């Protein structure tokens, strides 16, 4: 612990009790993300990926183990404004315009919006929504809403970024574009990033390290390092080395 902006989970367990039934969502999970690293979390549906993120954000309390974000307990780290998050679902506030939704974290943290005006405009442009600043979420498609959520995640210039399948609702072409953009943003900001994804190609393309999980109970089964040079270019998707890594992860997911 004590990393400047890393993420560390030590022997973290989490069980849910719902309607008298106990679900063991996570058992003894150990995960350490070095400051400035990019980690992808991949695993079957229901294996506890979102739960790891929610624990690290202080939205749930662990049944056991220790969690630190930038060396602090989750609640302290998020309240300090050093984290950013985009959930599996866009979760926009329906009465706020695109611009105001992007600015929501600033309102929560009690920061003045003014100094961020350029940043907000830049982010909206970055996710390809220029011209929609004043649109309401109801007027956007599912993919557009998800892109607003990504812009929102970046507005505080986070040092630690949590992304829960942020591109799940996008089409393949847009998804590739957003992957390339995300890499660029990450290389500029060097935010410690934890990305949950179902896309093996996305994981290999973006991450330094792919963490493979299995379910029932949720646990980490393998960690695969991705030693591909950066910046990674779109051509990489067709590279034999890339395909070998994809095959290795697919194998790990199947339990090999």
């Amino acid at each position, binding site marked *: 612990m004590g990393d400047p902006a890393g993420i560390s989970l030590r022997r973290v367990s989490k069980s849910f009790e719902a309607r008298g039934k106990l679900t063991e969502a996570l058992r003894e999970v150990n995960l350490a993300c070095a400051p400035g690293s990019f980690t992808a979390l991949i695993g079957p549906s229901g294996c506890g990926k979102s739960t790891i993120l*929610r624990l690290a954000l202080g939205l749930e309390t662990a049944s056991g183990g220790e969690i630190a974000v930038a060396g602090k307990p989750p609640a302290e780290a998020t309240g300090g404004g050093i984290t950013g998050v985009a959930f599996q679902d866009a979760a926009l506030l329906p009465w706020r315009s695109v611009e105001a939704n992007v600015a929501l974290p600033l309102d929560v943290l009690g920061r003045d919006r003014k100094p961020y005006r350029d940043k907000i405009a830049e982010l909206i442009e970055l996710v390809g929504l220029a011209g929609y600043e004043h649109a309401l979420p109801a007027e956007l498609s599912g993919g557009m809403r998800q892109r607003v959520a990504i812009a929102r995640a970046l507005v505080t210039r986070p040092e630690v970024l949590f992304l829960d399948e942020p591109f799940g609702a996008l089409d393949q072409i847009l998804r590739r574009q957003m992957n390339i953009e995300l890499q660029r943003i990450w290389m500029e900001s060097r935010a410690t990033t934890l990305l949950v994804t179902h896309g093996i190609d996305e994981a290999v393309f973006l991450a330094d390290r792919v963490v493979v999980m299995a379910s029932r109970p949720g646990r980490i089964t393998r960690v695969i390092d991705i030693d591909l040079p950066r910046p990674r270019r779109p051509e990489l998707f067709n590279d034999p080395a890339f395909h070998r890594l994809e095959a290795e992860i697919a194998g790990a997911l199947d339990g090999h």
Partner: protein
Amino acid sequence: MPSRLRPFVGPLLILVLWEIAGRFGLVASGALPAPSAILARLAVDWSDYPGHIFATLFGAGLGFLIGNGIAIAAGVLFALYPVTSRVARGLNVALFALPPIAISPILVLTFSDPVPRVVLAAIGCYFVTMTATLVGLTQADARSVDVVRAYGGGRFKVLALVQARIALPVILSGLRIAAPNAVLGSILAEFGGGGRWGLGVYLLGSLGRGEPDRLWGIGLVATLIAGLAYLAFVVLARAVTGSSQAVTVPTSVLRSTDRPRPAWQQGLIVLASIALPLALWWALLAVLKVPAMLAKTPPALYDYLFGLPGSPATQAKLVAALAQTLPMTLLGMVAGLAIAFVLALGTQLTPRLIRALLPVALVTQTMPLVALTPLLVLLVGRGPAVILWVTISVTFFPAFVTMAQGLLLVPRAALELPRAYGATVWQQLRLVSVPASLPYLFAATRLTAPRALLGVMIAEWLATGTGLGNLLNQSRGYLDYGMIWAVAVLSVLVSVAFYQAVVLVERRVLGRLGMAVAE
């Protein structure tokens, strides 16, 4: 025919038929005067109205402000600190279940003029608005709440940024129901007797004189006032909720956030919640220095019921009255709920129906039921049938609004999914609308149970001369304070017991289906 005129055809036809029936005295041998005759009478009586209207409106308005102010503050408190809502539960249920007519004589005998009106109007608003506030505040989409919490936002940030805005339309729909309630409360206070001004006084004064056209005129004016109050909040709600429909499918409602507590704390909370209304009853009498002859404290009432030589006779009277009142209450309530449920489901099939129905519901149902009762007496006589009619009328409206509103919250995607698989309208109803409406059906049942009792008691008081309503009216006449208090407390207890029974069934059913209770 131009389609713009089509909505007016129905009402116009009714009006024409009504005119004919009135002209020739076809209904209940002249009990239904023609609209033209009612208007003519209104014009003649017009100079009487301003004073009565002002007295009723003044009490209703002041009570509306005070009652809703307290209600919203309480709703916010309960949402922020769930434990307070558990402690206040007994008080809330008692205030909610209390049939205003039961305490009207007590208030009038204890306080001078505007106070009884204001108190009953405020009580009429409190529970509706408090519940709306709490439901609105806690129904926030859990995912939106998560975004705020993920940036370290605490309960006040969540309240300010997410919950308040989501609660606004719900609170407005609560105020919409509270507004006619305030008018009703103000009029009911006039039943206690003694006053010179107010639509209720005017109505009671005209009831004995057998002038149907005047009674109808007063009824229409009272309805118009209540209807306008309702309409004001419809307009306001439309202006506010215009563009804030939920966009994504909310899959989760915030769970009751009070943490699990050890058994001794649970017990303490339950005890406190039962003790609070009793303590308040006692404390109010002490603080206001009400003479002991008028005001019965809990022990004094116990003495009256069980400790005096006359106690067995008192008990027998109460039991006999209860045996007349209870079956009618149940019957009327079930019928009112059933009609409301079917019509609410109908609005799912043809949204146009809700637009066509609401005005009708308004005219017949916003009509303060006290004004309605004399008219129903004229139409159907003083037999038990009038009790049923009054009870159905008072339960239908709030039940319909609750369920139709609840069904409006069913996400479009959920409605369209079965359709996408070629489901028929009936399948869609069975698969989505009926299950989705269950929590609201229960909420409506909780809401209407006490109103049904109120309706029965009013009809008994004014028309049939049976049951608890009549016992209350008689005791008022004899200045039998003990009996007045006994009937008041008994009515509240019956109402509370009924409410609790509904809650128990609701928890079991919804719990088994994994649905949240719309508290």
